[in-house]
C-alpha cells in the first residue's frame, strides 16, 4: 500500500463527504458499517487477482464532483413500440413521478426508506455486505438514490419496467442503487438502460440487488450504451429461493471502461438461472464481465453464454465462475464464452472457472477465441453473397445469438437493430 493510493481513496471519500442523508438510524448504521469496511480496503492494483485484466487508472486518477439531479428529456432513450412503465434516474437521483400499479410497490429507494415499506429492511443491503470489494463498499456507504420495486405474492406483472439510468456532466460521479423483490409466485420483467447525456469522464458506480422468492420468475435486461469516454462499474447481487427462475441479459454496446460484477447465489433446490451477455468493443473500450454462480443446493440448472466482438484497440474480459458446493448434487451447470477479434490491436481475456465439490454433477465449460469460419463465408459467397456481406451476416448472427433469450419482443427487435447499427 503506497501513500499515493491512500490519497486517491481519500479524494474519493472527500468527494462524498458533502452528502447528507436524512435517514433513520437503521440505514445510517448500514452506511457506517460500510464506512468502517472502507477503512480496510483500497483500490485494486495489477496484483489483485479479481481485477487482473482491468487497470483502473482511468477511473481512480480522475477527480470528480458529485452529479446533481436534472430534468432530462428521455424520449431519445425510449425503446420503440415498447409498452413499459418508465422510471428515470439522473446522476443517482430519482426524478420522474411514478404511477403505482396494482400489486406492485414502485418508489424511489429514499422514499421507501422513509416509509419503511414491506421487504425493504428485510432485504436491503443484505446481499452486499462484507464482500471486501471497495466499489461495493463505496456504494453501500454513499449511494444516493435509485428504484425500489416489490412485486406482491402471486402477482404477474404484464407490463415491463424500463429504468433509464442517466449520467451527465464532465467528471461527475454518481452512485445509484436499486432493490427488486419478487415475492412468492410473482413474475416481473425489468429493463435498465445505462446512458449518458453529453459529458466526459463521468463515472457511475451502480449496485442492484434482486431477491427472487419461491416460484418467482424475474428477467433483468441490462443495456449499457454510454458514449466513448464514460466509466461504469455495476454490481448485481442476486438471491434465488426454491423453484425460482432468474434470467439476466447484459448487452454492452459502448463504454470506455465497463466492469460488471454479477453474483448469483442459488440457495435452494430446483432453480433455473440464465446469464447471457454480449459485448461489442470499439476504439479503446474496455469491457469486463465477472460472473459468479454459486450453487448451494441440489437439483439446479444454470446456463451461461457470453459473446464478444472486439474491434480497433478494444479489450474484452470474461471471468466466469461456477461454484458447486458439497450439498449441490445433481447440478447441471454450463458456461460458455466466445470471442471474435477483428484486429491485431484488440485483445480478449477469458477465464472460465469451475470449482466443484459435489460428485454427482454435470458441469462443463467452453471458451473459444477465433475468427468467422472461412468455410461458412465461402459457402455464402458461392451462393452469390459478397464477401463483405457474408462476413456481416456471420458476425451479426454470432452476436444476436447471445441475446436470443430476451423475451420482450420490442426489446429483442431494438437490440437486434442496435447490433446491426453498431457493427456496420
Amino acid at each position, binding site marked *: 500500500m503506497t501513500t499515493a493510493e491512500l490519497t486517491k481513496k481519500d479524494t474519493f471519500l472527500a468527494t462524498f463527504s458533502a452528502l447528507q442523508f436524512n435517514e433513520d438510524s437503521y440505514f445510517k448504521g448500514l452506511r457506517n458499517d460500510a464506512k468502517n469496511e472502507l477503512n480496510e480496503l483500497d483500490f485494486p492494483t495489477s496484483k489483485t487477482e479479481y481485477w487482473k485484466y482491468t487497470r483502473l487508472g482511468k477511473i481512480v486518477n480522475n477527480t470528480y464532483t458529485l452529479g446533481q439531479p436534472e430534468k432530462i428529456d428521455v424520449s431519445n432513450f425510449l425503446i420503440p413500440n415498447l409498452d413499459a412503465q418508465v422510471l428515470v434516474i439522473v446522476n443517482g437521483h430519482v426524478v420522474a413521478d411514478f404511477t403505482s400499479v396494482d400489486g406492485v410497490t414502485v418508489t424511489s429507494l429514499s422514499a421507501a426508506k422513509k416509509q419503511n415499506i414491506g421487504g425493504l429492511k428485510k432485504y436491503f443491503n443484505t446481499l452486499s455486505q462484507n464482500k471486501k470489494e471497495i466499489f461495493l463498499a463505496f456504494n453501500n456507504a454513499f449511494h444516493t438514490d435509485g428504484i425500489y420495486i416489490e412485486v406482491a405474492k402471486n402477482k404477474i406483472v404484464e407490463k415491463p419496467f424500463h429504468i433509464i439510468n442517466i449520467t451527465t456532466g464532465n467528471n461527475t460521479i454518481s452512485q445509484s442503487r436499486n432493490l427488486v423483490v419478487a415475492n412468492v409466485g410473482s413474475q416481473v420483467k425489468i429493463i435498465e438502460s445505462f446512458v449518458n447525456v453529453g459529458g466526459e469522464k463521468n463515472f457511475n458506480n451502480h449496485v442492484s440487488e434482486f431477491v427472487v422468492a419461491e416460484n418467482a420468475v424475474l428477467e433483468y435486461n441490462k443495456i449499457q450504451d454510454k458514449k466513448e469516454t464514460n466509466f461504469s462499474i455495476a454490481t448485481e447481487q442476486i438471491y434465488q429461493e426454491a423453484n425460482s427462475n432468474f434470467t439476466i441479459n447484459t448487452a454492452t454496446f459502448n463504454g470506455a471502461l465497463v466492469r460488471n460484477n454479477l453474483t448469483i447465489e442459488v440457495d435452494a433446490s430446483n432453480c433455473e438461472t440464465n446469464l447471457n451477455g454480449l459485448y461489442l468493443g470499439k476504439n479503446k473500450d474496455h469491457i469486463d464481465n465477472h460472473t459468479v454462480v454459486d450453487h448451494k443446493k441440489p437439483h439446479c440448472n444454470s446456463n451461461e453464454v457470453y459473446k464478444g466482438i472486439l474491434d480497433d484497440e478494444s479489450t474484452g474480459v470474461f471471468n466466469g465462475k461456477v461454484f458447486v458446493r458439497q450439498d449441490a448434487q445433481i447440478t447441471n451447470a454450463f458456461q460458455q464464452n466466445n470471442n471474435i477479434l477483428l484486429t*491485431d*490491436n484488440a485483445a480478449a*481475456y477469458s*477465464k472460465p472457472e*469451475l*470449482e466443484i465439490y459435489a460428485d454427482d*454433477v454435470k458441469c462443463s465449460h*467452453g*471458451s473459444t477465441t477465433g*475468427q468467422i469460419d472461412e468455410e461458412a463465408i465461402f459457402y455464402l459467397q458461392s451462393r452469390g453473397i459478397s464477401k463483405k456481406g457474408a462476413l456481416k451476416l456471420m458476425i451479426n448472427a454470432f452476436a444476436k445469438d447471445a441475446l436470443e433469450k430476451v423475451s420482450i419482443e420490442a426489446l429483442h427487435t431494438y437490440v437486434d437493430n442496435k447490433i446491426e447499427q453498431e457493427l456496420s
Partner: protein
Amino acid sequence: MAYTEDDLKEELKNKEYKYGFTSEIESDKIPVGLSEGVVRLISEKKNEPEWLLEYRLNAFRIWQKMVEPQWAHVRYPKIDFQALSYYSAPKMKGDVKWEDIDPEMKATMDKLGISMDEQKALSGVAVDFVFDSVSVKTSFQEKLKELGIIFCSFSEAVHNHPDLVKKYMGTIVPTSDNFYAALNSAVFSDGSFCYIPKGVRCPMELSTYFRINEANTGQFERTLVVADEDSYVSYLEGCTAPSRDENQLHAAIVELIALDGAEIKYSTVQNWFPGDKEGKGGVYNFVTKRGICHKNAKISWTQVETGSAVTWKYPSCILKGDNSVGEFYSVAVTNHYQQADTGTKMIHLGKNTKSTIISKGISAGHSNNSYRGLVQIHKNASNARNFTQCDSLLMGDQCGAHTFPYIEAKNSSAKIEHEATTSKIGEDQIFYCNQRGINTEKAINLIVNGYAKEVLNKLPMEFAVEAQKLLEISLEGSVG
C-alpha cells in the same frame, strides 16, 4: 455380491503406499537452517567454481526479499525454512564404481525397480539416480559419449562442461522467477544435465530417478536439457520417497531448450509419498518446469501425478520460434487428503505456433484437484492455434475438482478452443458394460483407464507400464 463403486472407495481408503520404506544409509547431512553460510557450505562441498557461488548468493538475496505465493488452490501449514536441512548426501568414496556402491543403496534401487547394471538392463534406458541431494550413479555414459551425447549429473556438468552450463542455466527459469525457483537457485544440490548434439537422435530413453530418503531434508535439484538443432531426445523422470510423519519439501527446476528443429519429449511419473490416510506427512512438491522452443522445434510434456501431499507445478512451453509446437498431457490423481494445483502455460510468440493441452484430473477421498492453465497468444503470433481439453472425474462427495483456465488472445488470427467437463462415472456407462457381461469392478476399471488412456499413450513404453500400475494403486485398489 456385485462389486460396487462403494467397494472401490473402501479399497481406495485402505490402500498403502508401497515405496514407503526407508534405507539405512549413512549420510553426510548438514545441520538445519538456511543462511548465506549454508549456501556457501553447499557450494564448497560441491567444490564449485566462483561464478556458480555468485549465482547462488545472488539467488539467495533475491529469495530473501520474496514472499511465499498464496494464490494456488492448496492449503498447508506454513513451511519453516529454517527447520530443514538443505544438503544430505549418502557417504561415498570419491570416484564411484558400481562395485563400490553401498549394498544398501543397491538394494534400494532394486526395491524401486531401477536397473543400473548395464548388462542386465532390459530396455536400454540410461538412468541418473539422485538420492537425497546427490546423483549416485549414471548408467550408459560411455555408450552415449560415442554419439557426442552428454548425460551426467549436474555437478559433473559444472566441472566438465562449464561453458554449456553457463550458457543455458537460468535462461529459461531466471532466479527471480518465483519464490521456489529462487530458493532452488540458491541451494540446489544436484540434478541431471543432458546435451544432444546437432542432428543426433538419442538412441535410448534418458531417465532420472529422484529419491528422498533422509528425514527433515529438502530436495532441490535442477535438470537442464539442451537439444541442439534437429536433434531428438526422450527424457523420463521418476520420484518416490519414504513414508514419514513429517512433510518433506521438494522444489526443483527443470529447463528445456529445444533449438531449431529439435524435439524434446519429457515425461514424469511423480509418485512422492502422498501422506497417510489422515493426511499426515507427505511431500510438498513445488516445481518450476519450463521449456523454450526455437524455430520448428517441439516440446512435449507428459506427466502422471499420483503422489505428493501438495503439488504446485506448471510445466510450460515458450513457443518463441515460428512453427514451433508445444504439448502437455497430464493425468493427476489425488486421494485421501492430497491437494494438487497443476496445469501448464503455453506462451505463443512465434507465427504458426501450435499447442495442445490434454489434462485429466481424478479426485477421490478428501482431496482437491485443480487444473490451472494459461494460453497466451501474443500480438505477432499470427495463425497461432491452441486446443485445450481438461476433464475431471470425481469419486466421492468429499473431494473437489476445479478448473482455472486463463486465455489471453492478442492476435486476430488466433484460434483458441477450451473445453472442460466434470462428472462422475456415469451409471449408464457402467450399466452398458454390465449388459455386455462385464462386471462392475471391471467396468470401472475400463472407464477410468479408457479415460486416462489418451495421456498414457503418450508415455514411452517402459513408463506407460509403470504409470498404468500407478493408476491402479490410486484407483483400483488391489486389482491386478
